[in-house]
């Protein structure tokens, strides 16, 4: 099997910028230039081997200046993770944590404990670039997941199919491919029986453990194999299924590029994956692939758009408004719409567009220029250049630059001959341009 193709073209600021958006949350000021100096191989090596995490930038706090309470306070869970995305020195690890949150989509609507959700989040981070086998095994025994897909209600004599079905359909094999039958679903459920927890007032659910007396020890027949299977076997059976590697590669690829891989690439990525179920070598190969640099753009998930803009500004988390803004823009962390995760092909509609507008508005609010005090040039081109400088010069298409300049020209012309308007309108226009740049199709995609 030949290795997957590697991008050989120039690797400058533009390519590094795109890589940082796909593999993380976009560059901080100067970061794309620095990464470009390493060349593609060096850049991918740095992203996949980031070393210890450093958190760069001001510590997060809520609207009153108090530290975040992510285990207990409404919306603080979302703000806490957003902060991690903004300040991390390991963007790919954090991005993969987000990938696993979407892949094994668990919602706190069904779990009812921010603490359990954050513990699951730590699990995703720990396995971010590690072994998918370890990840699947730990997720299967994870308290939030046990709560979410009724693992605790799945016991000997009265199986609950919820987790057994989704682990095959959504986590490892895929629907409508003939990979499993309804009988496999029922038998998997039996293999997965035995999880138990305890519950205490003021503490809630705790002590999640495997209780052999609740496990169905009878013989099960799964994928044509017969045995006294348990939950570990259930995981291994899915991973050794011949249709698992193709599912895994296709799904993982879809987080980084909008078009599916060509057949040769798909086959060589599967070969890399099959040699040990390791995530890192597959991700490295995807990030080095020509499709990432020569292929079409990708719509940024809303949380990536928000985190990336905050990184560009060097801005910290100073409000928990981010939680409801996340909801408005279609991605409230820890609350995916269902166990299939977010629909990555439909991030943008007229409602989520407005949500993104509010995200930008919220980060601009504390930087609003006061037209009575600030000075801005009465010149459309200069105003556009200054708005781009505000966002650390993101690459912009000529069409967008033209639209922004036309807006500025017309808005300035409205000032007419009134002196106060000629002084103040440029400031209003600058405030508006900052909003428009961040909302442009260029910055919604990468």
């Amino acid at each position, binding site marked *: 099997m030949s290795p997957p193709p590697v991008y050989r073209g120039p690797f400058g600021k533009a390519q590094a910028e795109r890589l940082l958006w796909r593999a993380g949350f976009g560059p901080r000021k100067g970061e794309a230039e620095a990464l470009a100096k390493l060349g593609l191989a060096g850049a991918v090596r740095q992203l996949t081997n980031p070393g210890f995490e450093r958190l760069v930038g001001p510590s997060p706090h809520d609207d009153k200046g108090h530290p975040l309470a992510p285990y207990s306070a409404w919306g603080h869970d979302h703000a806490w993770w957003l902060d991690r995305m903004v300040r991390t020195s390991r963007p790919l690890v954090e991005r993969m944590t987000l990938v696993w949150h979407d892949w094994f989509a668990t919602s706190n609507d069904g779990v009812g404990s921010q603490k359990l959700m954050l513990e699951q989040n730590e699990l995703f981070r720990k396995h971010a670039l590690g072994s998918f086998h370890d990840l699947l095994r730990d997720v299967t025994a994870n308290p939030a997941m046990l709560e979410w897909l009724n693992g605790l209600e799945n016991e000997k004599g009265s199986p609950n199919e*919820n987790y057994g079905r989704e682990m095959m359909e*959504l986590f490892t094999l895929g*629907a409508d491919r003939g990979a499993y039958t309804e009988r496999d679903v029922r038998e998997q459920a039996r293999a997965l029986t035995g999880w138990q927890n305890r519950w205490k007032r003021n503490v809630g659910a705790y002590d999640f453990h495997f209780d052999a007396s609740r496990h169905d020890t009878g013989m099960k027949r799964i994928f044509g194999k017969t045995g006294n299977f348990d939950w570990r076997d259930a995981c291994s059976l899915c991973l050794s299924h011949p249709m698992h590697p193709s599912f895994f590669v296709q799904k993982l690829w879809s987080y980084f590029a909008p078009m599916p891989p060509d057949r040769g690439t798909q086959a060589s990525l599967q070969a890399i994956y099959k040699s040990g179920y390791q995530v890192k070598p597959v991700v490295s190969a995807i990030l080095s692939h020509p499709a990432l640099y020569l292929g*079409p753009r990708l719509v940024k998930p809303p949380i990536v758009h928000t985190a990336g803009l905050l990184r560009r500004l060097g801005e910290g988390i100073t409000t928990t408004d981010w939680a409801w803004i996340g909801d408005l823009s279609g991605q409230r962390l820890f609350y995916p*719409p269902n166990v299939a995760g977010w629909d990555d092909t439909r991030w943008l509609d*007229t409602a989520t567009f407005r949500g993104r507008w509010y995200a930008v508005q919220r980060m601009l609010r504390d930087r*609003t220029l006061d037209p009575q005090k600030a000075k801005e040039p009465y010149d459309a081109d200069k105003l556009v250049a200054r708005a781009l400088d505000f966002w650390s010069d993101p690459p912009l298409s000529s069409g*967008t630059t033209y639209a922004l300049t036309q807006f500025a020209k017309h*808005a300035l012309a409205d000032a007419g001959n009134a002196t106060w308007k000629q002084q103040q309108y440029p400031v209003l226009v600058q405030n508006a341009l900052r909003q*428009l740049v961040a909302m442009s199709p260029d910055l919604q995609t990468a």
Partner: protein
Amino acid sequence: MNGRRFVCDECTRADLLRATAGRGLPAIEPGMPVPAGTGLTRRGFVARSLGIALSVYGVGRLAAFDEGIANAAAAGPQPILVTVFLQGGADSLSLLYPQGDPLYAKYRKTLAVSGGSAFTEDARLFWHPSLAPLAQLHDEGKVSVLPAVGYDHPDQSHFTSRHYWEVGATDPRLLTGWLGRYLDTIGSPDNPLQGLSLGGSLQPSLATARVPVATIDAPGQYDFYTPGVWGSVQDRLLDAIGGLGAVRSHDAAFSTAANVARQSDRLRRQLAPFAGKKLTPPVQYPTSSDSFPTQLSGLAAMIAAGLPLHCVSLEATGSYDTHADQTTELGPALDTTAASLFAFQRDLEARGIADRVLTLVWSEFGRRAQENGSGGTDHGAAGCGFLIGTHAAGTQIGEFPGLDALDADGNLKPTSDFRGVYAGLLEQWLHTDAERVIPGAGKFQQPVLVK
């Protein structure tokens, strides 16, 4: 699956937005334009074309509103189809349950429902007590019940089965929704309101290939506030959203982002008459932390205002994927859902527009006859649906197949096919050739749905 929707506290969010608007603005001095978004520019506005009074905030060009409404009114009243999705696979054997059937007692040892009123069309069945409002509408001849709707070779995956229903075919590869394809056939290139999703995201049944559609939370909240921008600059800023939408590109994702900007711009203009307006429905809707009742009351107001709506989709209160604790989950969800649908019907009647609206309530499948050991039920096959409206035929479509004739998986067998129902709605209600929308529409028996 478990998919309880995140229910945002609408009030809190609205308050936050309101508190945000106007914060940090400089003092207004004589001769300066008044900042928008502060509530200061509220103006009464009469839409001449309709003769209705509206409150308008952050006024731009009144003439443009008039034009938008005039266009809407000029289009003339069209029939409107509303679809309401019970997410997660609603348990039809609880919604309409066979009381007194020994098999029911056997299969539902802990979950058997009781205490509801009799379903007058089938002596075997009773309404879930929480569906009493639907039973009342049924007695008035305004509800057609589908006791076992589905399709052959049922798929027990939420996502696959829902996908089939959304696209109107058992085709996993179809990308457009059935209503989306309908709108692609008859819709217009500049009216996103023709296909409206209420809620956080686009309902897949409305996914089009050609014409624009819209998603909003509530008609009065479609605003675009930016701090430090007001007056004529703000008007220009709002126009510039359309400017970004006009940027052309060969890249698909870029074009998607541009298209959405253009559609948002168009939608904002269409909804301008509702901006910041507090709705006062003529009837009482249930109070709920979920937005379903307010979405329906907003919908009634939009229809009454003559906005050019045609197909509308939204999700009902609750998650119906009751693998566990079914009794505690189902009752409250059905309470709010049924009471909201009832209020919506009464609202439309009070406004004199009930003859224009039909509402289809559906779920991706029903649930297994045999309850599981967790006080819940697993995924099943045929489920139940409802068609509500003054023009609904009011007689059941298909019949209850009985618990003595389950399929090999222990699930109810369908007695009507959802594709036949769609074909009937397209031809009898929307007056369109169903073959143009539903693949192989002629193969499915088309029930009489409309009177």
